[in-house]
C-alpha cells in the first residue's frame, strides 16, 4: 500500500507524456502528406506563375503586343513568312481565316484569333484577368460573408433575422439572372462610375469582381453563420464575457479564430466557382470588357471558328478546366486536413 504522495508520483510516471501540438500545424502536416492535394497546389501555382509572366512571354519570347488587332501582320510558319490572316480560296474567295497553331513558341504558338492576335500571349494575359477576378471575388465574398455572419451570429435576435432574410432573398435570385442583369445595367453607364474621389471605369476588372462576389455571399454566409452560432454557445466565450471582454474583443479574439478554418476550407472551392462564373459572364459579353481579355472572352472570340480553328476555343477552356480542377482537388485536401471527420457540410 503506497502512501498518498507515492500514489500521486506513480500516477504521474504512468501518464504518458504527450507533446501538445498546434492544431494548425497538425492540419498543415496532414495536407503536406496528401500527395494528390500537393500536386494540385503545385499545378495551380504553376498556372498562376505562368500567367503572371504574361508580359515577359509576350515581349521577350513571342515579340508581340497581343492587344491591338494585327490583321495585316505577318509571321513565320514552317520557315516561311506568311500573312496572319489568309483570304478564302476557291472561286469566290470569301472570308479571312486566321492562321492555326504553329507550335513554335516564338511565333503564334497557338495560332491567331479572328483579328490576328497571338492566342498564346492572349491566353496568359487572359489568365491574369480570370485569376484576378476569380481570386478577388472569392476573397471579397468570403470577407463580406464572414463579417455578416459574425454580426448575425453574435448579436442574434432581430439582427440575425434581418440579415438571414436578406441573404435568403439574394440567394433566391436565379444566379445568372442577377449577375447578368446587374452587369448589363452597369455596362450601359459606359463612362464609368464616380465614388467620391474614386473613378471606376466601365471596363475595370473590379466591376465583374464585385458583382460575382456579391451574388455568392449567401453561399458562404450560411455555413459561416452555422459555425459562428455553434461557437458563440461555447463555454470559453461565456468565460471571456464573464471576464469583462467587450463585443469587439469577443468577436475578433474568441469567435473569429474558431471559424476561420471554415473560410479556409471554403476558399479554394469559392475560387473555383468564381472563376467558372467569370468565364460564363465573359462568354456572354457581360463580364470582362475590352481592352481586358479573360479566358471567357477568348472562348467567345473563338465561337465563330470552332470548326476551322478549334484551338482558339480549346486552349482557354483547358486552362479553366485545369485551374478549377486543381482548386477542387486542393479544396478536398484542405477540407480533409482541417476537418477530417467531414463535419462541415456545404450545401448546393
Amino acid at each position, binding site marked *: 500500500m503506497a502512501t498518498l504522495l507515492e500514489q500521486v508520483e506513480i500516477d504521474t510516471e504512468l501518464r504518458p507524456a504527450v507533446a501538445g501540438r498546434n492544431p494548425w500545424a497538425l492540419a498543415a502536416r496532414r495536407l503536406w502528406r496528401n500527395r494528390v492535394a500537393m500536386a494540385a497546389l503545385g499545378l495551380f501555382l504553376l498556372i498562376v506563375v505562368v500567367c503572371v509572366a504574361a508580359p515577359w512571354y509576350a515581349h521577350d519570347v513571342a515579340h508581340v503586343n497581343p492587344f491591338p488587332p494585327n490583321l495585316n501582320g505577318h509571321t513565320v510558319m514552317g520557315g516561311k513568312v506568311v500573312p496572319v490572316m489568309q483570304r478564302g480560296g476557291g472561286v469566290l474567295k470569301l472570308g479571312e481565316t486566321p492562321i492555326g497553331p504553329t507550335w513554335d513558341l516564338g511565333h503564334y504558338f497557338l495560332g491567331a484569333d479572328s483579328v490576328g492576335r497571338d492566342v498564346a500571349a492572349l491566353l496568359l494575359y487572359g489568365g491574369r484577368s480570370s485569376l484576378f477576378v476569380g481570386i478577388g471575388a472569392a476573397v471579397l465574398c468570403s470577407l463580406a460573408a464572414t463579417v455578416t455572419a459574425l454580426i448575425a451570429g453574435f448579436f442574434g435576435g432581430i439582427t440575425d433575422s434581418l440579415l438571414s432574410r436578406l441573404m435568403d432573398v439574394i440567394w433566391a435570385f436565379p444566379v445568372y439572372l442577377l449577375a447578368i442583369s446587374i452587369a448589363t445595367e452597369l455596362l*450601359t453607364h459606359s463612362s464609368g462610375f464616380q465614388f467620391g474621389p474614386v473613378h471606376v471605369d466601365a471596363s475595370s476588372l473590379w466591376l465583374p469582381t464585385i458583382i460575382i462576389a456579391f451574388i455568392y455571399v449567401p453561399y458562404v454566409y450560411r455555413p459561416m453563420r452555422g459555425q459562428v452560432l455553434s461557437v458563440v454557445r461555447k463555454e470559453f466565450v461565456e468565460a471571456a464575457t464573464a471576464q469583462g471582454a467587450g463585443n469587439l474583443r469577443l468577436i475578433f479574439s474568441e469567435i473569429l479564430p474558431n471559424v476561420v478554418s471554415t473560410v479556409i476550407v471554403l476558399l479554394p472551392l469559392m475560387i473555383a466557382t468564381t472563376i467558372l462564373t467569370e468565364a460564363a459572364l465573359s462568354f456572354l459579353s457581360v463580364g470582362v470588357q475590352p481592352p481586358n481579355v479573360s479566358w471567357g472572352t477568348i472562348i467567345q472570340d473563338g465561337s465563330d471558328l470552332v470548326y476551322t480553328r478549334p484551338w482558339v476555343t480549346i486552349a482557354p477552356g483547358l486552362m479553366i478546366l485545369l485551374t478549377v480542377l486543381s482548386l477542387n482537388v486542393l479544396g478536398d485536401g484542405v477540407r480533409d486536413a482541417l476537418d477530417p471527420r467531414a463535419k462541415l457540410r456545404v450545401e448546393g
Partner: protein
Amino acid sequence: MLTFIVRRVLWTVLVMFVITVVVFIIFFKTPGVDPARALAGRSPNAQTLAEIRAQLGLNRPFPIEYGIMMKKIFITRDLVSYSNQGVKVIPEIGQAAPATLSLVFGAAALWVVLAIAVGIAAALLRGTIFDPLLMVVALVGISAPVFWVGQMANMVSQGIGHSTFLFSWVPPLGYTPFTQDPLLWFKGLVIPWITLSILYIGFYGRVLRANLLETQNEDYIRTARAKGLTERRVLLRHNLRTSMITFVSLFGLDFGALVAGSTLLTEVVFGIHGVGYLTWQALTNLDLPTIMATTVYGAFFIVLVNAVVDIAYAWLDPRIRPT
C-alpha cells in the same frame, strides 16, 4: 406543421415580390433604353416620341409602372414585349417552357441514375484504385465550364466527327417539339442532355459517396453488419436510404434552379429556344417586359422548390427546423 407551411408560403410570396421589384429597378431607368425610340423610325420629332411614350405608358412614376406590369403578368396576362409589339410575353414563355423542361428532365434522369451508380461504386470500391479514379473523373466534370463542354461537343458532333457513324445521326442545332417529330426531338436533345448532366454527375456522385462513407460507422449500420449481412447489402439496403436525404434535397434545389432558367448557357450554345434562351435574348435587347416575366417565372420556381424541399426536410426529420 401547418403554421410552418403557412409561414413558408407567405415568405415565398414576399421573396418573389422583392425579387421582381429589384429587377424592375435595375432595368427601369437604364440609360439609353427607350422603347418608344425604336418604334418612331427615322427622324421623328420630339412630339412623336412623347406621344409614343405616352401611348406605351412610359411616363408614369415607377411604382405605378411596376404595378401595371405586375397586373399584366398575373391578372390580365396580356403583357406585350418591347422588342416586338405583336408578341404577348406570357404565351411566349409558355411556348418556350417545353424546350427547357425537355432539356432538364432528360438531363436530370441521366444524372441521377449515373450519379447514384458512381457514388455507390466509389463507396463499394473504396480502397481500390477505382475510388480515387472515379472521384477525379467526377471532379473533371465539375471543373469544366458547361458552355465550353457544349462547344467541344458541337465541334465533334457537328464538325469533325459528323461524317463518322458515331455522330452522323446528330441533327443540326436547335429544338424540335416532341409533338412535331418525337425522333428528331430525342436526337436533338441527346448531346445537350449529356453536356448538362456531366456537371451534376460529378457533384452528386461525390455527395452520395461522402454521405455513404460518413454513415458507414453509424450504430445502425454496425448492427446490420453484426447481423451478418454482406457489405453490399448493408450499403444498398440500409445506408443508401438515409444517405439519399441530402442527395434528394440538393437535387431538388438544382432541379428547381434549372427549370427556372439556369439552363441559359446550355440553351444558348445548343440553340435550344427555351426559357433560358428567352431570358438571355430579353437581357440582350433590354426588353423589360420579357425580362420581368421570365424573372417572375424563374423566381417562382426556385422559391417554390426551396419551400417544398424545406417542408419535405422538416417532415422527414422533425428535429430539423430551418432557422
